[in-house]
């Protein structure tokens, strides 16, 4: 089903159709007044083509065969007919309860190991527009790995999170980072609250706050840990968290550790979110019916496996109507969306101050390591005092901070940043259109730099990845448990450094391999 919205003046969300805002960008007020700072955007178009019936039947058959062969091979292995490559438990551990659940280890032995050659491909140099992959040879259904000693050079990179192509670090920016490494060293060995608070951290936080046009920001040493330990600082057991069903594992872990009640709403579905908000407030906490202390809506800017963009306009309208708070994880959207690359708020033309908590990472488009939270001064000072990472975890390494500062400065003050954002947006559209024309099932939003293309069959993942590598393209295939069981896909991450020629070559290679592997499910429709 396709959801299309028309440009125009909004009258809020309450008349929305099932999967989106029905009248363009919402201004958050339900009586139809048009707020002057909101700019209408292009049609908010997302596609999630349903799985063709034939694919669902045969993919299930595929899994049955995998399972059957798995059982046969396990039998051969137990009876020592086949050589065993799996590690086995120490004989001294007899009598201990088994360490692993049967199903996951069965899946690992008999399905996951078969596609291991597409995953964990080691690189020999910085990932840029092209990769230098260390070649490996696999045998015995993925169990035996040998390094051939060769390096596959200049493989076009369609898999790394390198949206603005800044990873290669040549020239001036590398020098600045090296100087920072010499001045500060890399080790800090102390958390922010003790003696790990460097002047460069404050500089980075200032730069982030100015870039996003918010009151303040705070930086942490790891993006994953930022989500995990910030959510518990904001909500507790008397709070309700409404999260999108496709939220990242770090958000799920953070919500679990906070002890708040978690309810998931259907992906990007404003009606479902509204119903859960309304019912949440009306019925209160389970059993006691006491009112919730706070309600926090947690979503992502761009979803990394679906390629969709969150319907921020709709969510902001709802959060105002129901007095909830909004937390957005902009790991994949900061630097990739919006005319000024400020992320999803820039894309929708919504003031960043309307979002209570903006979370981002420095690992995707900067690239480096670390995360940040941006928001009002009250929230940031509270996190400085209360966040477990600031209290117990080592602070961010100085050269990594410097890298992030250099990139922010480049984006906000030079033309180079604007050029890169434009090129990325152009690449996204060209790539998606090419794939759709060829008949692939492409998920997500037209403007998102993440392009998932559905494969469905677990065995086709291996074929697709191998064939693409032979043609000189590095792709990322994802299957269970990162996606639903029948939702295996190849996920392309586009970059501003890809030239038009590279995109055209990539498209023809993908169409070639897609035909070979029979992935063009919509061909001829």
């Amino acid at each position, binding site marked *: 089903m396709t959801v299309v919205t028309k440009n125009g003046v909004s009258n809020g969300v309450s008349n929305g159709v099932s999967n989106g805002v029905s009248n363009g960008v919402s201004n958050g007020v339900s009586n139809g007044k048009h707020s002057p700072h909101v700019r209408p955007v292009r049609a908010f178009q997302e596609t999630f083509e349903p799985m063709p019936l034939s694919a669902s039947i045969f993919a299930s058959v595929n899994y049955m065969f995998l399972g059957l062969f798995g059982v046969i091979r396990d039998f051969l292995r137990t009876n020592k007919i086949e050589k065993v490559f799996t590690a086995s438990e120490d004989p001294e551990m007899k009598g201990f309860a088994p360490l692993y659940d049967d199903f996951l280890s069965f899946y690992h032995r008999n399905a996951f190991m078969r596609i291991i050659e597409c995953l964990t491909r080691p*690189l020999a140099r910085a990932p840029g527009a092209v990769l230098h992959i260390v070649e490996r040879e696999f045998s015995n259904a993925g169990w035996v790995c040998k390094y051939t000693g060769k390096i596959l050079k200049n493989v076009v990179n369609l898999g790394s999170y390198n949206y603005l192509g800044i990873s290669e670090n040549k020239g001036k920016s590398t020098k600045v980072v090296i100087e920072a490494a010499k001045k500060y060293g890399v080790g800090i060995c102390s958390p922010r609250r*003790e003696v*790990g*608070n460097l*002047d460069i951290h404050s500089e980075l936080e200032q730069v982030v706050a100015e870039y996003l046009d918010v009151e303040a920001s705070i930086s942490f040493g790891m993006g994953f840990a930022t989500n995990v330990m910030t959510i518990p600082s904001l909500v507790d057991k008397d709070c309700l968290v409404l999260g999108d069903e496709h939220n990242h594992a770090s958000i799920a872990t953070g919500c679990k550790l906070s002890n708040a009640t978690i309810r998931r709403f259907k992906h990007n579905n404003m009606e479902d979110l509204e119903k859960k908000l309304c019912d949440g*407030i009306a019925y209160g906490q389970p059993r006691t019916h006491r009112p919730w202390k706070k309600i926090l809506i947690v979503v992502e800017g761009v979803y990394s496996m679906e390629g969709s963009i969150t319907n921020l306009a709709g969510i902001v309208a709802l959060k105002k109507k129901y007095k909830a708070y909004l937390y957005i994880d902009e790991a994949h959207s900061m630097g990739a969306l919006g005319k000024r690359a400020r992320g999803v708020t820039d894309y929708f033309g919504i003031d960043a101050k309307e979002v209570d908590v903006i979370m981002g990472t420095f690992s995707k488009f900067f690239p480096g390591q670390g995360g940040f939270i941006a928001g009002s001064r009250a929230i940031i000072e509270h996190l400085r005092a209360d966040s477990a990472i600031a209290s117990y975890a080592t602070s961010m390494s100085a050269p990594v901070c410097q890298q992030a500062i250099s990139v922010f400065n480049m984006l906000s003050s030079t033309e180079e940043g604007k050029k890169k954002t434009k090129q990325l947006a152009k690449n996204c559209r060209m790539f998606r259109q090419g794939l759709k024309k060829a008949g692939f099932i492409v998920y997500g939003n037209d403007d998102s730099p993440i392009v998932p293309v559905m494969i469905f069959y677990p065995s086709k993942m291996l074929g697709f990845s191998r064939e693409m590598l032979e043609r000189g393209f590095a792709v990322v295939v994802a299957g269970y448990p990162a996606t639903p069981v029948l939702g295996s896909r190849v996920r392309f991450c586009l970059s501003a450094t890809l030239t038009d020629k590279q995109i055209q070559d990539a498209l023809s290679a993908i169409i070639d391999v897609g035909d070979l592997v029979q992935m063009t499910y919509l061909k001829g429709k």
Partner: protein
Amino acid sequence: MDVDKLWIVNEAIQSALQTPYHVIFEGLLVIWILRLIFSKPHKIPDKEEKLTAKEKKELVDLWKPEPLAPPVEKTLAETRPYRLVNGQVGKNIVINGHKCKNFASLNFLGLVGNKRVDDKIEKCIQNYGVGTCGPRTFYGTFDIHLELEKKLAEFMGAEEAVIYSYGFATVLSAIPAYAKKGDIIFADEAVSFAVQKGLQGSRSKVVYFKHNDMDDLEDKLKQQEKMDKKDPKKAAVVRKFMVVEGIYMNSGQICDLPKLVEFKYKYKVRLFVEESLSFGVLGKHGRGVTEHFNIPISKVDLVIACMENSLASGGGFTCGRHYVAGSQRLSAVGYVFSVSLPPLLAGAALEGLKISEENPEIFARLRQKASFFQNLLKGIKGIKLVGYPESPCFHLRRLHPVTPEKDLEFLHDVVDKCEKNGICITVATRTKAEVLSEWPASIRIAVSVQMSEKCLKEAAKVICHAVKEAFAEQRKS
């Protein structure tokens, strides 16, 4: 009894014997009625009355949420501002504008600012850039990560090592990768915050035992054994773990590893040891608490450590037998769903390992200096020193605590006075979210192998003087 009545009874019995099914059926009915009379009444759950749209709207309008965070003024009034450091956090540190000798950061082997490490970092930045742009499974694995994992496994004498991109996230992800809902974990009550979060994230039943008290642990293990005997089928599938630290961050004490290994095999409980402070400190070659006690590392199911202390780099690692360590690559959230360790940090850690291997006497020297410094500080009046005698990380507490707030104020005062006199120390951070919130406040001292004896003597003098002054001031107020 009359003959007639007897005859009636006799007839009744005779007729009953002729039609036994009748009797059986009626007997069953009687039993059923008795059961119904004596059984508890079954409550029908009331179906919640659904609210109308109008009622919901009214409740929504009435609802007032709390602010997401307390007001700025309140937060600022209740917390101390961060101390500002300019430049390197090495042997010398410039903190809040004061030039000090650093006894606060866990730079045990003095690798911060080491020339060889700095050169390696420069090479890595030039070759790999800063970030890896992807998690380990999706083009985030570099040859330097594989080299580091191999080197760590070799160094520790383990079969396999798995590296994570952040020390805090290592133990937070490693424990839930094995312990799930329904399992049981026996943990020391003084484990650090990251371990506590790992335990919480696992959703297992956590049984805390008194800090370093092996008798208390054994009691609890015996209790569990008794419960297991009642339901052996369930016990056969419920996994049990013990989680301890090599050197405890919160007390500087060392765990009793030989006893723990004995319990492991006696009570069939797997052993995880968190070695962030003991890795690169204990043992002849710095391999940690297993080497210190001469116990083969294969006896410990998983060693979890971080490279942010002794190796003065970033990230963390776990190591153990292939069978145990390997599964983290598929099931540990912090490994699978996070971007991998920046190559410059991996390079720094590799160089740090090589330097340690080339200079194995560094570990004994570190412990000797730690011991020396502890002896200098033991004599300070009014202060109690807590920690294993050779641990370079130990705590100073008030000998006679007053109230938690006054004690904390006193300790901060000591820290401020030392800072003004050129010695940088720190109060051990604790938050309300800790499991053991009544744990006494303390100053955590960290000794680096770079400190000379002269420097240690001067530092001890400064700390002693600061403590005296702080006591005097508190008595006046």
